């Protein structure tokens, strides 16, 4: 199968959908050259640096029958549009009794690794998960981002596509033919029996590397990639933990009230899963500080495969003696 980068797969998803549906148009502070070339300046709009206006205009255009895409570029730029996201986009369908739908895609790059310091290295998706009325996802592969973006563009609700900065240039197989990936469907990226690692985006790859390394020691790691944050595929996560009895959650965001906390709650609240836990849940997250600039500091703040391995060893501690008893 041919290979595309994560970013190429994303652009291809948008282009294919724009070819399919003339109601789709694209707004961002710089027009993406391949889209501009194919679709022209009417449908691929370079805008003023006006995220609040763009975010709100998408709502109005969607309510009038269009299917806008707003590319915030980096998630950090959307904070000036929080009223439009939280008070308007998330609520307008429900608050008006469902009288019309608002099909909108917002795109935002998240995550660190670029040594661009606190304002450009954020992973704040849990802030948005907390707001009722928004769907969102965070893919880890070119295949997933293409399929999820196509689903998002065809969805009749505001959807946020969080896209990992670290993965933009990463290649992976992407079929030529049309496909979509449904929301709320996790993907088991590697099957295993001893411990479940639920990881997002770049940390899916770190978890896979950790699993590979631990396999040499006879430790069998299952890596679950939720892909969609809202709706979250709790069932797949619970089933995996029921099988392994141990859970490590790896997230590039901080732990406090985060995605990792939500996954831990999904496990703890479910009697059948809770009963099968053989060890406390372990979270492997960024430290709860703004992301610093210097490589020494940034590397220390973010989790990686080594910390995932440490986390796995922690939940496995005492395994032999417990199982012998």
């Amino acid at each position, binding site marked *: 199968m041919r290979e595309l980068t994560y970013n190429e797969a994303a652009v291809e998803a948008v282009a294919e959908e724009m070819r399919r549906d003339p109601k789709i*148009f694209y707004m961002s502070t710089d027009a993406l050259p391949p889209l501009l070339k194919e679709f022209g300046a*009417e449908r691929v709009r370079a*805008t*003023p640096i*006006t995220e*609040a*206006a*763009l*975010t*709100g*205009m*998408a*709502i*109005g*255009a*969607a*309510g*009038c*029958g*269009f299917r*806008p895409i707003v590319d915030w570029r980096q998630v950090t730029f959307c904070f*000036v549009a929080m*009223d*439009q996201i939280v*008070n*308007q986009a998330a609520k*307008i*369908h*429900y*608050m*008006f*009794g*469902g*009288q*019309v*739908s*608002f*099909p909108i895609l917002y795109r935002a790059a998240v995550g660190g690794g670029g040594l661009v310091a606190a304002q450009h290295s954020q992973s704040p998706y849990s802030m948005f998960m907390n707001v*009722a*009325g928004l*769907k969102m996802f965070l893919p880890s592969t070119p295949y997933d981002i293409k399929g999820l973006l196509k689903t998002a563009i065809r969805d*009749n*609700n505001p959807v946020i596509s969080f896209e990992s900065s670290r993965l933009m240039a990463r290649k992976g197989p992407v079929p030529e033919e049309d496909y979509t990936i449904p929301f709320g469907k996790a993907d088991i990226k590697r099957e295993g029996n001893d411990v479940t690692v639920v990881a997002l985006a770049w940390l899916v790859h770190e978890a896979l590397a950790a699993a590979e390394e631990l396999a040499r020691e006879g430790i069998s790691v299952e890596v679950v990639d939720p892909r969609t944050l809202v709706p979250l595929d709790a069932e797949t996560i619970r089933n995996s933990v029921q099988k392994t009895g141990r859970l490590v959650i790896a997230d590039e965001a901080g732990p406090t009230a985060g995605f990792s906390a939500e996954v831990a709650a999904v496990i703890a609240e479910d009697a059948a899963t809770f009963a099968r836990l053989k060890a406390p849940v372990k979270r492997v997250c960024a430290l709860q500080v703004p992301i610093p600039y210097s490589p020494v500091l940034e590397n220390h703040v973010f989790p990686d495969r080594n910390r995932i391995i440490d986390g796995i060893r922690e939940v496995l501690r005492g395994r032999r003696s417990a199982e012998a008893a």
Partner: protein
Amino acid sequence: MQSLSPNLPPEEQREMLRRMLTIRRFEERASADYLAGKIYGVVHCYIGEEAVAVGVCTALERGDRIISTHRGHGHCIAKGADLNRMMAELYGRQTGYCKGKGGSMHIADFGIGMLGANGIVAGGIAIVTGAGLAAQMEGKGGVAVSFFGDGASNAGPFHECLNIAATWKLPMLYVCENNMYAAQTAAAATHALSDVAARATGYGIPGVVVDGNDIFAVYQAANRAVERARSGQGPTLIECKTYRWRAHTERRGQPDPRDPGEREAWMRRDPIAQLERQLREQSDLDDAGMESMERDIMAALEAAVAFAEASPFPTPEQATEDAFAA
């Protein structure tokens, strides 16, 4: 001094009067029912400002779109919303415009181009600018109107949207209802310039100040702006100087620091009384005509209240419906 009547047939001028009076009577009833505990939450009355909504909406076609503010009943009625469904919404019933999920601050009727009242000051300006962009892309000559207050004119979205609408020549009317107070704070204390319309210069678009209690002045300014928008020349900022007669909200004990003399002076310039006087002088409107108009409006309101009261409340389970569109 009221403006000369525009080139509108007498029955349309009488319709303007009827709509203004409907807004007033609707809100008098809403206020009374709110104080009686039949309407919940919060109610913001538009009384005194009716000429702005009706004057502007008279210049629009049904397919044109508007957005409103937290003080939204007037815009709904001016655009042709159904009184029954409005009242049912205030009463929190299933049959309301929002199935009882919105209340006074969130009435919308997309079917008539009323894109909603909005509980956030300046919250609707960007949304309706998107409707203006949609109208431009549709290419059928539609326009979109943002109603907002003097308070919103100090918020970021006002400036962002004027710039983008001017740059893209969007078919927009930005109608500032300057009632001189943002909640309890005087506009004079929060605006460096006395005229919001003067800010249009900074965006290279026309800025017009009109007497917002003079419905013909409002209508004529809106009409010119609509023509300009429909012909692809871009947006206009219209500032309507007006006054809200009642406190910021209908809550009992709501502080109202405004000078009573100021309020009385504005009440003497009642937009409804002014139009009534003019139509009595210039058309065949007489006592009988006024009485019949009042009777019809009160009957429609009684029917709306009866409809609301007879309508079921939502079931508790309906709280989870419409969370997402299918």
